[in-house]
């Protein structure tokens, strides 16, 4: 049931778009803005950054031998397996109902996005982007943070309405998640 290892975004050419170039800066700014919307619970603003044909997944991880690391990523059943429509349903639950208790009162979230690398793809309007995410989440009066670290592989597309997220795979560093739910977005 398990598939291959680290994902390659569709059409990635492996041609690096250097740090500091205009495209790189735009993409970095896009990712920072995105993190800010999510941290501030501006979920509808975040949804505006998503392409209509979005594929958004969070595979599972398994402990497998070093020689078999491909199998450490599980893309059959996943933790999150979303389209834009299903994400909008999740957002509607969180913002339009009075009983989304998993995030009411909401957790305080902080997304630290680093190690951004951008590659060109076969399509001039799409870029393959890898970033690291460290998410801290704190709820109620917990003295400890719930932490999550991950590598995200994105396709970011240039459109007349600005950059949009068209593909994201979030590779978590935990096989057994330490937080009780993923009522949040990564």
């Amino acid at each position, binding site marked *: 049931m398990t598939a291959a290892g680290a994902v390659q975004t569709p059409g990635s050419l492996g041609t690096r778009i250097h740090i500091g170039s205009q495209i790189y800066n735009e993409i970095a700014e896009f990712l920072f803005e995105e993190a800010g919307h999510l941290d501030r619970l501006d979920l509808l603003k975040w949804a505006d950054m998503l392409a209509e044909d979005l594929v958004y997944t969070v595979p599972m991880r398994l402990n497998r031998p070093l020689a078999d690391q491909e199998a450490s990523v599980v893309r059959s059943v996943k933790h999150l*397996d979303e389209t834009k429509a299903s994400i909008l349903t999740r957002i509607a639950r969180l913002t339009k109902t009075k009983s989304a208790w998993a995030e009411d009162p909401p957790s305080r979230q902080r997304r630290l996005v680093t190690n951004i690398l951008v590659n060109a793809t076969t399509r001039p309007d799409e870029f393959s982007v890898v970033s690291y995410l460290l998410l801290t989440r704190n709820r109620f009066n917990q003295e400890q943070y719930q932490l999550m670290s991950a590598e995200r592989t994105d396709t970011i597309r240039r459109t007349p309405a600005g950059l949009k997220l068209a593909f994201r795979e979030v590779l978590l560093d935990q096989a057994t998640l330490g937080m009780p739910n993923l009522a949040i977005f990564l």
Partner: protein
Amino acid sequence: MNQTQQSMLADGTSIADLVNPATREVQVRTLGDPEIYQLELQRIFGKTWLLLGHDSEIPKPGDFVTRDMGEDSVIVARTREGEVRVSLNVCPHRGMKVCMTDSGNAHVHKCTYHGWAFKPDGEFIGAPIAQERMHGEIIPKEKLGLKQARVHLYGGLIFATWNVDGPSFEEFLGDVKWYYDLLFDRTDLGLEVLGPPQRFIIHANWKAASEQSACDGYHTLTLHSWLGEIGGFGNGDLTTSMYGVDVGSPHGHALRCMPVVNKFEKARSFEARGLTVEQRLAELPPPGVTPDMLPQLKRKLTPDQLRILVDSPPQVAGMFPNILIAFVYIPQKGGDPLGMCSLHTYIPRGPDKLEFVNWVLADKTASAEHKIIMRDVSTRMFGTSGMVEQDDSDTWPHMTKSARGAMGRKMTMKYQAICSKARPANWPGPGLLYDGFTKDDTQWNWWMYWRELMTAPQEASVSADPGERAERRFKVASNVR
């Protein structure tokens, strides 16, 4: 047989008194007390049948997964002969964990510490440097295998117990097997997992989750009221889904048989009441079933079972001690008959921690397209990110915290909503039947079985030292009233 019993907690509380049959109350301290938890590991998780997975996870000889029975890691492996065996994942040499990965294929499981090696059936192959006889001469090789649990496969589900001389799985399940067969033994090839289980930690006592699984339908009205608040899921008013037949068992198993007429009418916009069993099967098959499976269903199930399956299928069920089964009707927009099949077990990880293990299932013969839709529905509603179960994961930790307070732990959980209706008319199935609005009866049965196991006479450990045996005798004597 020499039998002894610790029937008191250290503070003098009788274990039997934690559950009060006269008033149907359970002390909140049961959700957090470390002493109770340690006893549970022996008296519940050391005694009952426990769910470890599904045989479709280990289809080939040598395939294995590591799982947990209580706090004990076990290797669940398929032998060369095709048999499923469950071995304690503890090396008989020095107590090291033998298998460190979650899954794989191996005909030899070799301990990384000193290299003792074992077959998938737990048999000891040997220790490195054979001529030096590093396993010694005191214990024969055939007694140095990995400790074996007793295994039973039911509808592909792998169950195991340490209670090798105890009740069979059928005895444990009892007459309510009739209903579980509607879910797990209804097609020729049965179910398969759609992937490995999701796993995540909730800082809650395992019983907070598990007693809810014994068919707490009532919480849906409040905790999951969002289902009625946005379109596409509820009927606006969730109250209608509270009515049905709850099926209970003296062993704490429970199923909520929920009429599907309203879902029918919502999905297909027509009057379903007049339809025959046959028509209903074809028009809106039960969760996970597609019309092409119907001939199999008719072969495998009795007409009475078929009727319950189309009228009031068990959509949410529990199995003692720590299993939730959710085979839920979720007709899709446009009326496509669809459901999701999700299976959880709640592994105890300490008095205030559980590991939530969630498998997503589908019938083996379902089309690839159907399986993907079922997987997506299941992932979005249940498990790690499931919009329904997110809210449960938020509730159980607070109950567990309540058990810490000097006052909170003295409070009680109440199961005093009692079904007063007669046996449902024209109901062909067995079990303890509770008709009408879902009440506390099946959860109360769960606690009464917990109490029965927690107070059952324990076999004296052969290896207990004389001092410990004397202490136990003293405790037994002092408990005589």
